[in-house]
Every structure is written in structure tokens, then in C-alpha cells.
């Protein structure tokens, strides 16, 4: 360690600055002459102590800083080391330990910004000196700042009642937190409720899901709002104000017990309308319930098809049949407000619209189905009670499953939807089991990465299911041979055998991929989070913060983040619940003080800043005619400070004199 500290006096009234440069083993010292930089810094104005040390972040390194602050009466601290992302907090604490305000400190990143990115030692050392000088010039203007603490509301909102939302809500509720679960459909359960079996264990989806659905309904800590949507989110981490619209189902939820006598009594004697839950394969009446285990078990009326809504002249036999008087044709949308500390988004996915691949004939040939339709067909409680039949009621003798429809395709979606291989295998097994048909899988690669997934694939191979490797070119009813008459023919290049096959089948199943929900963009804006290019919600870090978002207090779980299977979804939901618990149980959040504020007497009230804040932290005080920044919401992005045309917004740690002196420093000699 070089001694650059021979009793320096401070002649010019500058604050007394301590400069420290870290070797970081050889990470920095291997490329930068740290002793030379320390010697150089010792001669900069204001610097009274300048040292280099092997590992500044180590306990002795920190202790040395604290000791020097006391001994040399240091008023400012500059540490040249690694990225502030890594150790800014470490040295802020070292400053505090020495009795110095943590923000009288500036960190210089000479590892990522110099030693790691340069090979020329001389030039890297010169650059380290430039960066050090900039920090020394800047730190003079630093001000003492304090971190603000705000309390966290212990209640949580979970948006989306699929398996992710259900699991997250139950985990939090079991930990004693009050949870509101908002679901836009009339029942929770999501996609999983429509599945028959789950891969690879082939356990019944309903058998494992419905107990959790009932647990949600009966849990004293969970408020369940179905047929409801979040319309507005205001506030900040720990203190969100959420507006929820509860759409009218024309049935009073508290009175209905789900006896379904109204359905029997409906003037429509037979179900007549396409049933959304069964993918349109079944029929329902205007008054209906999605499925027998729907939660809450409350019927609803579809005003589009109900005679009373359409003509006002129905005899309302449903209402007469209800001895609890639960039917209310005049029900209106309700708007509710909630106060929560954390929000978990588990808004799920939608499946690829198979009509966007017209060469597969979905919507054109009745024999072409989507995988979700088959899920309902093989389901014992589905429209055919589990019988695999074509739309004309005939039994298929041969079935072709086309993988990667709307996945791994430059023309549609580039990503792998991760679940289609496995659910295709599952459906192949179930179709064969239910119908005895020959089943052909047309795949690009089989992706069976998951616990017991490859084994499941092996099982299918031994069951006599056919696998043909190749992307299907088209599905056609144009027969070239007598055997193809009346069949759907899949034309495909078998890339293993090396020739083009024509495979005649009766039924085609399209393994449609997973996509972001149609309104994912609106939702992400409403909750002020980001999304990737493909539209799935963006996690804060792909590896180390997979359920956090860039907005504190808002977490994501399940397929809204990326396509994933049930085990991964549940794991992520648990993780999101745990992250929410961390936030709540800490009781408060500490806010970085790098926020902006409007200097009231300087603000002319031009409102230029108001619409620019990406966090809606700025409001206009109509009484005073001044802009006001809520520093708790402010994230310190600096947009307002840069845009204030009269310079009346100041941002802590980024005041003009700090920035200009830094520029002067880095450019100076």
C-alpha cells in the first residue's frame, strides 16, 4: 500500500476527501496501475487521504475507510472499485460506520468500465485517473441525504384465478395475510380447469385443482371477486390503491347457492347456445354455470342470449324458480376500491389462434380441432362425456396431432411454448385410450425436459403411438388415392426417413402454442410493468429475480411471464407469494433518496413535467398552481428534472453542479 498521505493540509476550504482504489485481486490491479492512480488522486484538489488496497469490500478494507474518516476528519469519500450495483451499499455503510453521511460518497466503476474492457494497461490506468478525477470533482457538491421509510400495507391483491393465482392466494392466506383474488371470468380455475388429465402423471386435473378452488372460496383470509377486472392502479410499493370493476352477472352472488333450478326452469327447454367453457363443442342456456365445480358456484345470465334482456317480455321462469330471489335483472356494474401493499399478476396466457395457419384447415375442415377442444372431448365431464368423436358424431379411426402450431415459427411466434410436446403426448395417450384410433404425432423435436417427462415419452413410444419427425406442410381433403377419399391428408416431409409422406386421418389436432393474453399490453401499462418483445411480462432479472418486476411491490407468476407447465407455474406462484411476504413482513420499505422534487417558489406551474413521469408521481396542485412530486413514488429516473424548462426540479445526487463538475472532471487534466 503506497503512502500518499503525508499530513496534507486543506488550504482552500474544499471538503476533505478520502480516495480509495481497490485491486479486486487481479481483476483491477492486473490491468490498472492502482498505486499510480492512488498517487495521482492524492494530488487532486481536496484529497487528503489516498490509498490502494487488495480488497476494499472486505471487512479490513471497510474498517480502514471508517478509521480514516474519524482520524483524518474526512468529509467526502470516493471509492474506485467495481460496479455500484455490487458494492455501493457496502461503502455507504462503511461511510456511515465512520460517522459520515452515506451519501457523501461517490463510487467509481473502474472494473466493468476500465480493467475488464481494456487490454492496454497504460490507457486503462489513464482512464481510471479520468474517472477518479470526475468523482473527486463531483463529490464536493454532494449533500447529506436520508433514506425515507414508508410503511407497507399488509394486504395483497392477486390478479388472475388460474392455478398460479390460486396457489399464490392460498399461500399468502395460509401465512395469515388478507388476499383479494380478482378473476375476470365467472369462475376461477383458469385453463387447468378445462384439462382432463395432467402430464406426465396422468392424474385428473379436476381432482387436484377443485380442492384448491374450494379452499380459495372458503378461506377466511381470501376475498374472491370473479367476473371482475382491475381498472386502475395508483400508488406505490406498499401502498397501492386499486379500482376493481365487478361486472353484473344478474345473479346476486350472496344469495345463489348453485342449486341450478333456474337453469331447469329457463324458457329455453334445451341448451341452445355455444358453450365457451367447452370451446363451443357443447351447448348452454342463457342462464348457466360454466361447469359443475365452478367456484364460486353461482349461476349467471348472458344478456346477449336471454329473452328478458333482448325483448323485456320473458315470463322470467328462472326468477320464479329461485326461492332465494337471487336473480336480479337490474344488476349494475359495481366499482370497488382496494388498498394493498403488494400485487401478484397471474393473468395467464391465451392459445394461438389456429386460423392464422390456414393451411392446417382449422375452421374449414370440421375434422380439424385445437388441443383445447380435444381436452374437453376426452374429459369425462365434457360435452361428450369423454367420448372422442368428430363433429358429425362419428368415431375417428386415425388421428394426427400437429406439434408447434404457432410456436417455433418465424412467421407466427418464434418461441417454444414448452408445454405442447408434453400435452400432445398426453392427448395422444388419451385419444388412443378413449377411441382406440391410430395416433400420429408430427413433431419438429420432442422437448421432454422435466421430471419424468422423458419417461412419459418412452411410455408413449411403447404404446404404439406413431411419431413422424417433420413440420406438416398442409392438411387437405384432396384425395390422390382411393384410401384418401373422405379423409384429411397431412402432407409432411418425414425428415428422418427423407421423403414426403401423405398420411390420411379422420381427425387433426393442432397443438396450438401459448401467447400473451390479448390485452397483456393494456394490463402491463395499468400495473406499470414491462414486457418483452413477444409481449410476455418482463421479470426484473431472468435468473435472479424471476418473479419481481421493475415496479417494486408488483410480482408476476405463471404463464403471463412466459409459457410454462403446471409444476413451474405453481413453483413460481409460491415464489411470488414469498416475495410478497418478504415485503409485507419487513413492514416498511426504504426508498433511495435519488428522487426529484419541485422547488415550490421556483415553479411557474407550466405543467411540462406532469405528463412525462413514467411513474405518475407528479400531480398539479390546482390551489397553488404548482407541480408536486410524490417522492415515495418517484424512482429517480430524472425525466422531469431534465424537462423542467425553468430548472425548478432538482434531483438528489444529480443536481446540475454535480453533473457539470463531473463532466469537467472527466474532461479535465
Amino acid at each position, binding site marked *: 500500500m503506497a503512502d500518499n498521505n503525508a499530513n496534507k493540509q486543506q488550504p482552500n476550504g474544499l471538503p476533505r476527501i478520502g480516495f480509495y482504489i481497490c485491486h479486486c485481486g487481479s481483476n483491477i490491479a492486473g490491468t490498472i496501475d492502482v498505486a499510480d492512480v492512488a498517487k495521482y488522486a492524492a494530488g487532486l484538489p481536496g484529497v487528503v487521504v489516498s490509498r490502494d488496497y487488495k480488497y476494499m469490500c472486505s471487512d479490513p478494507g471497510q474498517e480502514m475507510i471508517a478509521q480514516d474518516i474519524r482520524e483524518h476528519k474526512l468529509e467526502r469519500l470516493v471509492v474506485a472499485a467495481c460496479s455500484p450495483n455490487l458494492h455501493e451499499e457496502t461503502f455507504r455503510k462503511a461511510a456511515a460506520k465512520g460517522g459520515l453521511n452515506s451519501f457523501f460518497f461517490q463510487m467509481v466503476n473502474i472494473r466493468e468500465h476500465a480493467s475488464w474492457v481494456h487490454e492496454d494497461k497504460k490507457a486503462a490506468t489513464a482512464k481510471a485517473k479520468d474517472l477518479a478525477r470526475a468523482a473527486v470533482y463531483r463529490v464536493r457538491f454532494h449533500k447529506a441525504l436520508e433514506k425515507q421509510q414508508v410503511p407497507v400495507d399488509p394486504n395483497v391483491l392477486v390478479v388472475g384465478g388460474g392455478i398460479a393465482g390460486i396457489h399464490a392466494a392460498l399461500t399468502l392466506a395460509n401465512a395469515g395475510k388478507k388476499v383479494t383474488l380478482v378473476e375476470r371470468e365467472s369462475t376461477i380455475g383458469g385453463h387447468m380447469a378445462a384439462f382432463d388429465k395432467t402430464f406426465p402423471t396422468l392424474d385428473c386435473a379436476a381432482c387436484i385443482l377443485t380442492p384448491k378452488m374450494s379452499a380459495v372460496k372458503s378461506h377466511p383470509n381470501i376475498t374472491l371477486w370473479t367476473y371482475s377486472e382491475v381498472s386502475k392502479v395508483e400508488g406505490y410499493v406498499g401502498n397501492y390503491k386499486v379500482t376493481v370493476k365487478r361486472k353484473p352477472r344478474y345473479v346476486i352472488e350472496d344469495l345463489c347457492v348453485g342449486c341450478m333450478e333456474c337453469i331447469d326452469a329457463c324458457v329455453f327447454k334445451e341448451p341452445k347456445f355455444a358453450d365457451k367453457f367447452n370451446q363451443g363443442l357443447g351447448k348452454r342456456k342463457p342462464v348457466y354455470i360454466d361447469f359443475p365445480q365452478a367456484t364460486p358456484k353461482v349461476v349467471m345470465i348472458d344478456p346477449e342470449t336471454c329473452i328478458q334482456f333482448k325483448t323485456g317480455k320473458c315470463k322470467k321462469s328462472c326468477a320464479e324458480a329461485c326461492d332465494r330471489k337471487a336473480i336480479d335483472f337490474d344488476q349494475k356494474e359495481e366499482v370497488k376500491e382496494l388498498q394493498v401493499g403488494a400485487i401478484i399478476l397471474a393473468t395467464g396466457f391465451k392459445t394461438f389462434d389456429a386460423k392464422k395457419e390456414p393451411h392446417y384447415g382449422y375452421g374449414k375442415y370440421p375434422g380439424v380441432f385445437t388441443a383445447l377442444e380435444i381436452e374437453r372431448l376426452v374429459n369425462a365431464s365434457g360435452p361428450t362425456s369423454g367420448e372422442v368423436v368428430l363433429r358429425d358424431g362419428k368415431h375417428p379411426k386415425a388421428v394426427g396431432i400437429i406439434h408447434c402450431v404457432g410456436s417455433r415459427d418465424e412467421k407466427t411466434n418464434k418461441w417454444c411454448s414448452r408445454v405442447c410436446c408434453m400435452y400432445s403426448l398426453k392427448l395422444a395417450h388419451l385419444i388412443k385410450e378413449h377411441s382406440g384410433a391410430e395416433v400420429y404425432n408430427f413433431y419438429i423435436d420432442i422437448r421432454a425436459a422435466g421430471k419424468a417427462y422423458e419417461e412419459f415419452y418412452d411410455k408413449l413410444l411403447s404404446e404404439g403411438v406413431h411419431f413422424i419427425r417433420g413440420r406438416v406442410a398442409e392438411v387437405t381433403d384432396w384425395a390422390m388415392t382411393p384410401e384418401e377419399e373422405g379423409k384429411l391428408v397431412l402432407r409432411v416431409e418425414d425428415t428422418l426417413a427423407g421423403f414426403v409422406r401423405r398420411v390420411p386421418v379422420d381427425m387433426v389436432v393442432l397443438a396450438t402454442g401459448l401467447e400473451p393474453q390479448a390485452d397483456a399490453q393494456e394490463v402491463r401499462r395499468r400495473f406499470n410493468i414491462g414486457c418483452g418483445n413477444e409481449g410476455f411480462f418482463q421479470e426484473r432479472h431472468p435468473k435472479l429475480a424471476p418473479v419481481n418486476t421493475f415496479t417494486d411491490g408488483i410480482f408476476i407468476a405463471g404463464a403471463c411471464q412466459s409459457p410454462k407447465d403446471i409444476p413451474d407455474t405453481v413453483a413460481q406462484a409460491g415464489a411470488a407469494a414469498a416475495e410478497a411476504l418478504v415485503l409485507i413482513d419487513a413492514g416498511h420499505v426504504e426508498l433511495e433518496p435519488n428522487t426529484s422534487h419541485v422547488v415550490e417558489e*421556483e415553479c411557474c406551474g407550466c405543467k*411540462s413535467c*406532469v405528463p412525462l413521469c413514467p411513474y405518475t408521481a407528479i400531480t398539479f396542485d390546482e390551489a397553488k398552481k404548482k407541480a408536486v412530486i410524490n417522492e415515495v413514488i418517484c424512482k429517480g429516473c430524472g425525466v422531469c428534472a431534465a424537462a423542467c*424548462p425553468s430548472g425548478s426540479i432538482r434531483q438528489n445526487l444529480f443536481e*446540475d453542479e454535480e453533473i457539470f463538475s463531473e463532466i469537467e472532471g472527466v474532461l479535465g487534466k
Partner: protein
Amino acid sequence: MPDKPKVAFYWCASCGGCEEAVVDLAEDILKVVEAVDIVLWPVAMDFKKADIAARPDKSVAVAFINGAIRTSEQEEWVHMLRRKAQVVVSFGACANSGGIPALANQFKKEDILKFVYEDCPGIDNPQKIRPQTSTVDEGRTLTLPVLHNMVRSLDQVIEVDYYLPGCPPTPKIIMSAVQAILAGKLPARGTVLSPDIALCEECKRKDSKPADLALAEFKRPHQVQIDPEKCLLAQGLVCMGPATRSGCEALCPSGNMPCTGCFGPTSRVKDQGAKFVSSVFSNIVPKEEKDIDAVLDGIPDPIGTFYRYGLSKCILRRKLN
């Protein structure tokens, strides 16, 4: 009775409007004349340089200097006035920040001279004669001042004690400055003698400014029937009010014209043009480059719009090559 304080007025690169502004004090000028002795005022009275040079240093109470510094002569004069005066007031936009003359900093000196003496339509100069700093004619040497490469503000040449903003400063702020000087009630040195808050504060249209301007196109005053009540920015006109110091009582907006920024920025802003560009373009609607360009096409002369009075104080100094 002691001598009345001595006052000097001087002009550099300016249009003469600042001199008009003094006359514009109307009957108030009599109070000024009563209270002071004017020792220099080239526009109105006859003085020679030697008269001022002969005065003892610091014998002039106040020198009001308008205009930007473009020539060696102006530079010599202001250095001399700095020596003779106890207080130097930078008077008007040109002295404060270069003003209209500073727009020349967009061009090289050579390009300017070439245009003015050779290429400008209407010039008849087949020998391409240019003014020379020294010419011998019939045995006599005639001199002209040197034209500097750059137009500078007064405070880039000498130390300035106070600033009166405006193109020109309004009678009201001139009078209050004069009264403050006579009464010896001056603020800290370096102060701009006008309220340190932006113009919207005193603009009658302020309440009609929407929170989100969402600018979809820019218009120039001659292209639009201007609503006399509504915020001019909200009408798509570039009004520099939010980036301009108040004190003029929103003269231009009251006259149904957008503010062009002559009072300069507030004390917190180094570069008025850059600041307003940063602000107003954050509020335009399009997000795609091509659509943004279409909006910007509505401002054919951005430097003349945003730096009409402030190019000497622009952080980017001037064109070198």
C-alpha cells in the same frame, strides 16, 4: 450639494432598441436625468472616447452597456468602462446572452464576410473588396476594428455586476433597477434584475394550459388564427414562456404572439435553448422517428427559434469549420 452620480450608457453589437427603451421611460426619464449626470450616451449626446478615458477609474457610478461583443473596438470600450465604472449593468438580451447578433455563431466568419461582401443578392462588388483593419490612402493610414470570430455576451468579456433582461428591457424593469441603484438597495452581485420564475407565472393564458400538451404539430403565428385566450403552446405555437424568465408581464402573449424568450432563462438554467428543446419535445405525440420528423418540420429554423437571443450562452459554442 454633492455631485450627482455619474451614469454612462454604451452600445455594442445591437440594434438601438435598448436606447429606445431608455427613451421609452417617457416622463420617468426626467426623474432619472434629475437624479444623475449622464457622462456618456452616444445615441443622444456627443462624447469622445478620450473624454471617458480621461476620467479617473471608478468615477462613474453605473455603466449601462447594451449589445453583444463582436469587434475589437467594442471590446476596448467595455474594458475601459469596466475600469471607470463602479457598477456595470449588462443591458438587454444582446449584452446578456448574445441576442440576435449571436445567431452569427452558426457560421464561420469567412462565410459571413463572403456572403455579405460577395454573394448577397444586390451586392455589386466585382473586385471582391473586403473591409481591411488597416488601409493606406494618400499617405494616411485608416483603421477599422477587427471582427472577432465569435459573438460574445458582455460577461464573456468583462465582469458584470447586474443584468437587465429583455429585447429590449421593459420600462418597468429599467425604472425599478435605476431606483434600486440610486437607493443603494441592490441584491447580490450577478443577479438578473427580474423575477427568477418562468413567464407562465404571469401569463393570463396559464390556466388554459393542459397538463398534457400532446403536441401533434407545430405552427408558426402566420399559419394560424390564434385564439386570444388559450395557451399558445396548446395551439401548437412555440411559446418559450415556460423556459423564459418573467418580468415583462407576458407582453407578447398578451399581444397574441408567442414568447420568443428574450428575457433569457431563470438562474437555474445554463442553456435556455437546450432546456426548452428537452422540455417541449418530450411532449410531442409521435414515437416513431419518421413521425417525429414530420412534427419537427413545423419548426424550419430551430436555432433561430430556441436560441433567438441566447446562442452566445449555448453550451455548444460555435461552428469552427
